């Protein structure tokens, strides 16, 4: 039975076998005996087809009518001839395809064969692989079509699931920019995905993928350790996970992160390794920038602590007692805090401007006063390294003015004017600042005015030392007169037009 059933599947054999079986019907249709033999023959035939297939059916020569269909539990039976077979069994979307295949079969008088969807017994859709062969009369006309079909729903669903899963994987690999490899350790054959080629600076297909083609791109400094890590993963049966650099032919260096796993035979030999890589160059660069930034922050913080300590020492030496020290030290610490405040509010590439700085210091020390006149361009950008020392110097000037100078006496006046100028061989921009007090009753010649020690030291010594500034500080008849010229960054020049 099984053997014959298989033969029916084969197109030419099926036609011959079926024709032979149905031969009595065409030639010797006489007598009850003959009819009985015919019936028996048909039953035998139907029995083995039914045993081999889920569905057997019979169609009129032009397929307009279904004579019968036995559908087991797959699709509903048709026991009496029906012209509504198409709508009964085939969902609308698949009907054109079925009709087209039918037309072709009729025209050629040869096998109808098609995979299509069918409406199952429970009303849901399934898949059938259907074949029908024409039963030919002696004159070659089609008597009827005999068909058989198998339920291939599970197989179809499995195929669809596989296809979906492959599509998902492919799209994940593409979107995630994964470079894949599959290394047959035994034969040395290697598969690379397209992205893998590109990651290592090869055109896709430019080389035959191999272990050597991979190591050829490894950065010389990383090669030994990366290969050793691979061997270690193989020997210890651990996952391989490593970041390494590759050098492309255009000399650009990329960081790649690869993860892979070995497979072994029964003897414990590694036979295969599969894995995936991603390009992590941007992340590495970002990490390096972070490291530099953190180091810079550390450097500045520690320097600042050093400055605070030496400021405490200096203040202590100049203070009469602890109360005096407390007031002076707090005052100076507040200046440093304000500077840090100005600096910390900056975004990248921003700079503290001189007008910000002078306003912030004067208003902190002297409040707002009609006796103070400020004049100069706005937006003169200061290097961050300049800001702290300049602020401390201005703070000392302002403090002295409030205690002893222009802002201590009703007749006193203070003017701070500044300007930008290009000077020197490189035409570097300089910021000239003039601090001029007037209307101040000065002590007689020979007597040093009060509180000048630290302010004067900062201006005459610290600014030239630390900022390459040119400075002057003198006691004029009407009060203190001080000039500070400091080189500012070239970026300041670009803004000069706006100032």
């Amino acid at each position, binding site marked *: 039975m099984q053997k014959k059933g298989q033969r029916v599947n084969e197109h030419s054999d099926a036609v011959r076998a079926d024709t032979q079986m149905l031969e009595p019907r065409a030639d010797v249709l006489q007598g009850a005996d003959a009819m009985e033999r015919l019936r028996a023959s048909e039953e035998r035939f139907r029995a083995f087809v039914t045993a081999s297939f889920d569905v057997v059916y019979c169609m009129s020569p032009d397929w307009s009518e279904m004579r019968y269909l036995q559908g087991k539990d797959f699709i509903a039976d048709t026991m009496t001839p029906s012209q509504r077979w198409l709508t009964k069994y085939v969902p609308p979307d698949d009907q054109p395809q079925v009709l087209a295949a039918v037309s072709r079969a009729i025209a050629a008088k040869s096998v109808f064969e098609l995979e299509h969807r069918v409406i199952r017994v429970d009303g849901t859709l399934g898949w059938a692989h259907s074949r029908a062969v024409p039963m030919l009369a002696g004159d070659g006309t089609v008597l009827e079509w005999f068909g058989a079909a198998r339920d291939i729903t599970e197989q179809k669903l499995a195929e669809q699931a596989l296809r979906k899963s492959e599509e998902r994987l492919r799209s994940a690999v593409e979107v995630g920019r994964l470079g894949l490899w599959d290394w047959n350790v035994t034969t040395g054959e290697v598969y690379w995905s397209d992205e893998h080629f590109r990651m290592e600076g090869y055109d896709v297909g430019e080389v035959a993928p191999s272990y050597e083609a991979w190591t050829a791109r490894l950065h010389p400094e990383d090669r030994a350790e990366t290969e050793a890590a691979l061997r270690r993963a193989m020997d210890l049966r651990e996952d391989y996970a490593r970041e390494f650099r590759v050098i492309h032919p255009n000399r650009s260096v990329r960081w790649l992160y690869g993860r892979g796993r070995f497979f072994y035979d029964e003897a414990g030999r590694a036979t295969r390794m599969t894995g995936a890589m991603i390009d992590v160059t941007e992340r590495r660069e970002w990490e390096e920038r972070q490291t530099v930034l953190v180091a810079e922050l550390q450097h500045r913080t520690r320097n600042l602590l050093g400055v605070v300590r*030496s400021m405490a020492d200096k203040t202590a030496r100049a203070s009469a007692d602890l109360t005096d020290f407390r007031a002076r030290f707090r005052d100076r610490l507040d200046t440093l805090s304000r500077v840090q405040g100005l600096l910390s509010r900056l975004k990248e590439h921003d700079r503290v401007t001189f007008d910000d700085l002078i306003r912030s210091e004067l208003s902190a020390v002297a409040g707002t006063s009609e006796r103070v006149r400020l004049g100069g361009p706005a937006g003169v950008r200061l290097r961050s390294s300049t800001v702290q020392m300049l602020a401390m110097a201005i703070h000392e000037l302002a403090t002295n003015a409030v205690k002893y100078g222009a802002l201590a006496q009703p007749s006193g006046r203070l003017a701070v004017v500044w300007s930008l100028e290009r000077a020197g061989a490189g035409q570097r921009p300089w910021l000239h600042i003039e601090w001029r007090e007037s209307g101040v009753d000065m002590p007689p010649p020979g007597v040093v005015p009060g509180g000048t020690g630290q302010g004067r030291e900062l201006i005459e010594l610290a600014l030239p030392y630390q900022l390459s500034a040119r400075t002057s500080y003198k006691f004029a008849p009407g009060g203190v007169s001080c000039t500070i010229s400091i080189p500012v960054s070239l970026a300041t020049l670009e803004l000069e037009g706006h100032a």
Partner: protein
Amino acid sequence: MPERPLRDRHILIIEDEYMLADELRCELGEAGATVLGPVGTVADALVLIEREGLIEGAVLDVNLRGEMAFPVADLLIERGVPFVFTTGYDESIIPGRFSNILRCEKPIAVEGIIGVLGRMVETGARQ
């Protein structure tokens, strides 16, 4: 009379922050040293080292106005001048060739530096 471990020793101070340079100058001076400098840039430091006849020890800030001071360190080593680094960075930023140079983290303990320099200079002088 306090101990003067650096008496008459010629010590070079290389530090860009005025306040720190001034503090070192005062305290090394109090410890008896003849202070050279201070200087605050790589260029000034190189000129001064080339020019000075006698330098017996140095304090070198790793970062001078944003520039790494390693060329200065190389020149000091070439001249056989013992020195210490002062730095706000951790050691990873200092190249391996200076691994035997003492590193003082900021804010520095000046007394400690004076002690270390004193021993270094003495060792150097005996050799």
